């Protein structure tokens, strides 16, 4: 970009900004680019930075050192910084902020950025870059961060003039948090943060981007049509996803479901948006969803989708999806609508605003001539599915004489010990599905997992981010030994900052989900999915890092160990509970590939 266009951009940026009150602007502070960055983050309300220093970020790190308001958390690997920021964001609803250096610093963040992007998590990533005059010269630790991250960010900025920094920060947070949230990168060449060049500092109160209008209320005519369909339907189901959690619309979802006695199913990302202990809750749907949730979906006459995106792990074969159903689809992102499944009633809008007007219109209809719909037959049908093959019907779980611990029993024990009130993060694999199935989340933002990208190594750092936001709450990371080893260096970070996360490792000495697929689809050929003879002793790992390690190998010891894990003496300690679980256990139900949602394998005995 030429100098002219850089100036033009700066001018334009200033036009878009409504500045602070003129009184304050009279005596502007003179700050360097690095100090402006930190001040802008503070003015934005940022409390924590998760990061790792390096050459091109050193001016910024010096600015961090010279201020007291924002705490920097030093991780051991940049990927973990992004997952920590992500966990912080998921639990609080605020933006997670990451700061790293150029080159390997930024490439290490890519997995974490992609994770946040897939699950629509608000995140701002600030990366050091080589000085402007070295960009493009293959300078030491140079990577085109804007280019490398482009497909996995909502937007990105490359700072070409230090004066833009406050506006870029404001825009980045505005974009990251509004509409469908997502990660935003600010790439800052080192010369932009030079401590010797000062600028007038002013933080804009608000920004307006003429091409970006994220606040949508939903089309009134479509909303009316959705309400009509809902009130006419005989076999409706509410299918609620992560959008309800991210959009803070859980209360309204509950209100709607309660008013009409609607069955509710959650996606993996939506868990907690409707209380799992409620009778109207059918459990998670999809590939490893409950029998009743998937049967209800397949046989319904109306899918009322709220903040969900008809992911392939939900729909199974698209052409066989819910054959008798009309589809109402509420989502903030128009690209999610009719992407996989054609919506009969598409509603583009913020879920809370749309649900609110739907609830109001339902109320209005019911206060008029219309009678409350009667779903007696529908519920009788759903309950018969639930009673036949619901998760509770697995008799093996109640058998206390199993020679081996079933992984599901560990989750049930965890649920009991924490009274269902813990924040639970997970990694990716069988343990994730068991946690999603058996830990009954009654509140949103308590279940922290990488749904869209399926990132192994997410669980521990994400839990750490949650613990930083809520130091007095119980934060558990349910993991497997495979996932855990992907980021276990962060145990050192936990020691540095006293993060008393409880790690529960469902140790099956194998990459369980891979192995399950190999068992089911590859004739039991366990290609590169086992490593039992070379695993570290996780109790000793915990101790090496200065934490507490415990091991359970027999079912009879499980509950006592779980109680000890959460006992008073361990409140301020990170504890790893390594549980040797039955390595042969598979996750069921499991969707049959190429089938409809009602096509599931329910137990190990069944063949495809």
């Amino acid at each position, binding site marked *: 970009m030429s100098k002219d266009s850089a100036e033009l951009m700066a001018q334009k940026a200033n036009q878009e900004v409504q500045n602070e009150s003129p009184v304050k602007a009279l005596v502007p502070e003179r700050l360097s680019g690095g100090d402006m960055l930190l001040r802008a983050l503070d003015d934005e309300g940022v409390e924590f930075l998760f990061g790792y220093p390096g050459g091109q970020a050193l001016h910024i790190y010096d600015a961090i050192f010279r201020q007291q308001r924002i705490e920097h958390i030093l991780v051991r690997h940049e990927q973990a910084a992004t997952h920590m920021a992500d966990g912080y964001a998921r639990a609080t609803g605020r933006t997670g902020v990451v700061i790293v250096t150029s080159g390997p610093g930024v490439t290490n963040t890519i997995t974490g950025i992609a994770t946040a992007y897939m699950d629509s998590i608000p995140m701002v990533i600030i990366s050091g870059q080589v000085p402007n005059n070295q960009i493009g010269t293959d300078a030491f630790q140079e990577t085109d961060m804007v280019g490398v991250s482009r*497909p996995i960010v909502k937007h990105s900025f*490359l700072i070409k003039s230090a004066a833009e920094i406050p506006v870029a920060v404001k825009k980045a947070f505005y974009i990251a948090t509004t509409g469908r949230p997502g990660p935003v990168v600010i790439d800052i060449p080192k010369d932009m943060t030079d401590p010797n060049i000062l600028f007038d500092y002013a933080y804009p109160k608000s920004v307006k981007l*003429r*091409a970006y209008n994220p606040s949508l209320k939903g089309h009134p005519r479509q909303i009316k049509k959705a309400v009509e369909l809902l009130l006419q339907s005989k076999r409706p189901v509410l299918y609620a996803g992560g959008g309800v959690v991210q959009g803070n619309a859980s209360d309204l979802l509950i209100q709607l479901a309660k008013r009409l006695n609607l069955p509710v199913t959650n996606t993996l990302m939506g868990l907690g948006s409707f209380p799992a202990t409620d009778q109207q809750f059918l459990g998670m749907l999809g590939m490893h969803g409950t029998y009743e949730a998937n049967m209800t979906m397949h046989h319904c006459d109306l899918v009322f989708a709220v903040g969900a995106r008809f992911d392939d792990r939900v729909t199974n074969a698209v052409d066989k999806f819910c054959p008798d159903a009309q589809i109402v689809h509420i989502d903030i*992102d128009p*690209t999610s609508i009719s992407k996989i499944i054609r919506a009969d009633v598409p509603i583009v809008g913020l879920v809370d605003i749309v649900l609110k007007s739907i609830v109001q219109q339902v109320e209005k209809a019911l206060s008029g001539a219309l009678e409350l719909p009667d779903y007696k037959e529908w519920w009788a049908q759903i309950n018969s599915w639930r009673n036949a093959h619901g998760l509770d019907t697995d008799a093996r779980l109640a058998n206390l004489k199993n020679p081996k611990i079933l992984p599901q029993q560990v989750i049930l024990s965890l649920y009991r010990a924490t009274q269902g009130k813990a924040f639970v993060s997970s990694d990716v694999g069988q343990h994730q599905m068991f946690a999603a199935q058996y830990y009954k989340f009654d509140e949103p933002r308590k279940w922290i997992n990488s749904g869209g990208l399926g990132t192994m190594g997410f669980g521990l750092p994400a839990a750490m981010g949650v613990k930083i936001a809520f130091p007095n709450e119980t934060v558990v990371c349910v993991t497997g030994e495979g996932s855990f080893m992907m980021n276990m260096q962060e145990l050192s970070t936990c020691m540095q900052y006293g993060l008393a996360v409880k790690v529960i490792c469902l140790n099956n000495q194998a990459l369980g989900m891979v192995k399950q697929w190999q068992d089911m689809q590859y004739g039991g050929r366990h290609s590169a999915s086992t490593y039992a003879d070379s695993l570290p002793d996780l109790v000793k790992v915990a101790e090496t890092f200065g934490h507490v390690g415990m091991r359970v190998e027999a079912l009879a010891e499980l509950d006592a160990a779980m109680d000890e894990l959460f006992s008073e003496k361990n409140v301020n300690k990170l504890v790893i509970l390594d549980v040797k679980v039955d390595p042969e256990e598979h996750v069921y139900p499991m969707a049959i590939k190429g089938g409809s949602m009602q096509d599931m394998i329910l137990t190990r005995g069944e063949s495809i």
Partner: protein
Amino acid sequence: MRRMIAVLLENEAGALSRIVGLFAQRNYNIETLSVAPTEDVNLSRLTITLRGDDAKLEQIIKHLNRLIEVLKVADLTDGEHVERGIMLIKVRAEGASRAEVKRSVEIFKGRIIDVTPRMYTIELVGSADKFSAFMATLEKRSIVEVVRSGLAGISRGEKALIV
């Protein structure tokens, strides 16, 4: 089905790469692309032609709209529109075919913009159809080099894609 999409976007560094990247990420093929600033130097206008059905086009337009720097997107093939591109061709023109090529150029209202004893360089302005029709008049072996610009498109009548 061939489609033509017009996009108005902020004239900012990296904006074009986001659009091109989007097509690659979402597995959409760009057939032709042209881009240049408009009467407002802060705005660029792109014309993209591609092939796809209604559902695909709907997704592409939604995805383009989702980009932070994109202000407006329109499907020009949705209504009457005009499109123009430019094609430069270098052809062997010797002996009997020399006059034949010249005649074809006249029929297609093209211009011969450079001449050597053995070759013509021809300029043709028009739509994609016109280019293919002209190419069909040439003997394949005589074509030495072809350069085509992306197409620029605009809707007919009073409809306009403006901010």
